[in-house]
């Protein structure tokens, strides 16, 4: 059993590296895979392709890895803790709140590279809290259905506010227009470094609480009986989800459905043990995002489609399938 697990793990990591190389080779000018591997292992700054890879394409690929891993782990945690197969940072309003906060901050002139992740985190936290309270106020409480409905309403409202802000602020509109559709093309500035810090904090927390999430899936009473401090665990999960969502939004804007789709795929492969689900969601999510970004650049080449549009195109049918089979 352990041997089989190690084999699958090695296979998944090899697949991730292969698709990462493919991702780098795709672009305005196709670069052969051999050159990609050469540039990564034996960098030579006199070769133009190597410079393109190191300075432009590798950062974008790493951004895809970070965003895909972050959103997928956030979705997996949300689904595990809320017993809700439809939990996802996008569906529950966190992405819309984070985006609005970043747009607002930029419009107010406080959107520095270091400030963007905390702004996004604040927005995600507030909108998530609003979605939760609305669902709780509906008779029957926070069921998967009321949460998704409340999330849809809050997302629509916040997106409208964001649109109004952009109409008023032409310069902000110019700066963030592409980012707001969920794109890995922009943000060549310092945001990446700050966002990576938030991402790592979120991932480490997620890995730390993974074992307890399996326990919590048996009900709060059972988890307490087994010695889990449920309130503390929920705070840790909330922190992790907000940090991961904030770093993903800071890097690439609202990227819908990734946190919904990937955890379900992972559970189909490896079952319900969260000690495995969390690292797997990170690896599969990174691979999924790389593939989506490859599709975004190849589908209508030479025109590039926003990656967020691809994840929505892929995610929406899966969402409908989940509603039909799981609710």
């Amino acid at each position: 059993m352990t041997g089989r697990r190690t084999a699958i793990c090695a296979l998944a990591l090899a697949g991730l590296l292969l698709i990462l190389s493919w991702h780098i080779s795709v672009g305005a000018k196709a670069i052969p895979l051999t050159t990609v591997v050469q540039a990564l292992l034996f960098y030579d700054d006199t070769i133009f392709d190597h410079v393109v890879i190191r300075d432009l394409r590798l950062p974008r690929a790493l951004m895809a890895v970070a965003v895909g891993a972050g959103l997928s782990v956030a979705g997996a945690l949300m689904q595990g803790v809320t017993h809700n197969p439809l939990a996802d940072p996008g569906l529950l309003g966190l992405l819309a709140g984070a985006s609005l906060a970043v747009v607002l901050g930029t419009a107010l002139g406080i959107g520095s590279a270091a400030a963007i992740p905390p702004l996004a985190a604040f927005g995600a936290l507030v909108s998530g809290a609003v979605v939760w309270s609305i669902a709780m106020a509906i008779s029957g409480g926070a069921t998967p259905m009321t949460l998704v409905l409340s999330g849809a309403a809050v997302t629509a409202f916040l997106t409208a506010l964001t649109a109004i802000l952009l109409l008023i602020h032409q310069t902000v509109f110019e700066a963030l227009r592409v980012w707001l559709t969920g794109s890995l093309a922009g943000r060549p500035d310092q945001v990446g470094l700050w966002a990576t810090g938030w991402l790592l904090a979120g991932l480490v927390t997620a890995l730390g609480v993974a074992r307890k999430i399996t326990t919590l899936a048996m009900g709060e009473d059972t988890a307490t009986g087994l010695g889990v401090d449920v309130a503390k665990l929920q705070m840790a999960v909330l922190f992790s989800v907000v940090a991961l969502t904030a770093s993903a939004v800071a890097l690439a804007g609202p990227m819908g459905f990734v946190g919904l789709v990937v955890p379900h795929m992972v559970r189909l492969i490896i079952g319900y043990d969260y000690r495995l689900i969390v690292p797997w969601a990170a690896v599969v999510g990174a691979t999924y995002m790389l593939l989506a970004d490859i599709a975004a650049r190849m589908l209508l080449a030479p025109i590039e489609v926003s990656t967020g549009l691809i994840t929505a195109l892929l995610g929406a049918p899966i969402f409908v399938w989940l509603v039909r089979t799981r609710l």
Partner: protein
Amino acid sequence: MPDDTRVTIPLASSTMISAPRLQINELSVGYGDLQVIEHLTLDIPTGDLTAIIGPNGCGKSTLLKAMARVLPARAGQVLLDGQPVHNMQTRDVAKLMALLPQAPVAPEGLCVRELVAQGRFPHQSFIRQWSRKDTDAVARAMAATDTECFGDRSVDALSGGQRQRVWIAMVLAQETPILLLDEPTTFLDLKVQVDLMTLLRRIAHEDGRTLVIVMHELNVAAAFADRVVMMRDGMVLAAGAVTDVFTEGNLAEVFGLSATVLSDPETGRPVCIPRLGAR
């Protein structure tokens, strides 16, 4: 498997420490504006099977949840060897006292063995990973509950009685001297109830563990418990040995039930038969 051919399997490692004393001292518990239990004091005898019975809404489940620190105490304490459980590290409590709540959820996709293994949670940490001792504890718990035969099956695929045995295996794998169980036999066939209670009584008597079980079926409680606690309106109206407490007078007072209490000619235990036509 018929009972007479059953091999007696030790339910716990021989290193089991003797059960600490469980006491409830002036405990008050409630939800929101509702005060369910007020100033309740009760000693739980060590190494016995204690059944808590009472009419619906009398607070018996609330009491059990407060004992298991799932609900906070508004006043008073639940004491484990003199230490209030609500102030102890929750993991330390989990090494001494296990809880099987009324409606535990089996995460889908988890097989029986993996579910039972969750009982080892309080014994593990980052430093102390899964070990031989954990594997042994799971094997013992599954042998004692006769659940090995479906160890690799999914929990959803089992019958009600089998599923309940799996949950009991999980709390047994926790290897605690005290077990609290909330209506573990409700909604099951009488035969299955009897089998489960036989198992639970064995756990109490052969290992000297303390079991506190909230129960619904009066006669099943009377047949298996060493001690009975009768509750009404958040208060303990009677507590003691079964034959002392399970009387016509107490049944009338606690449940408003008019019944004849007879003595089982085989075991000498009380049995109640409701009087027909009486109110």
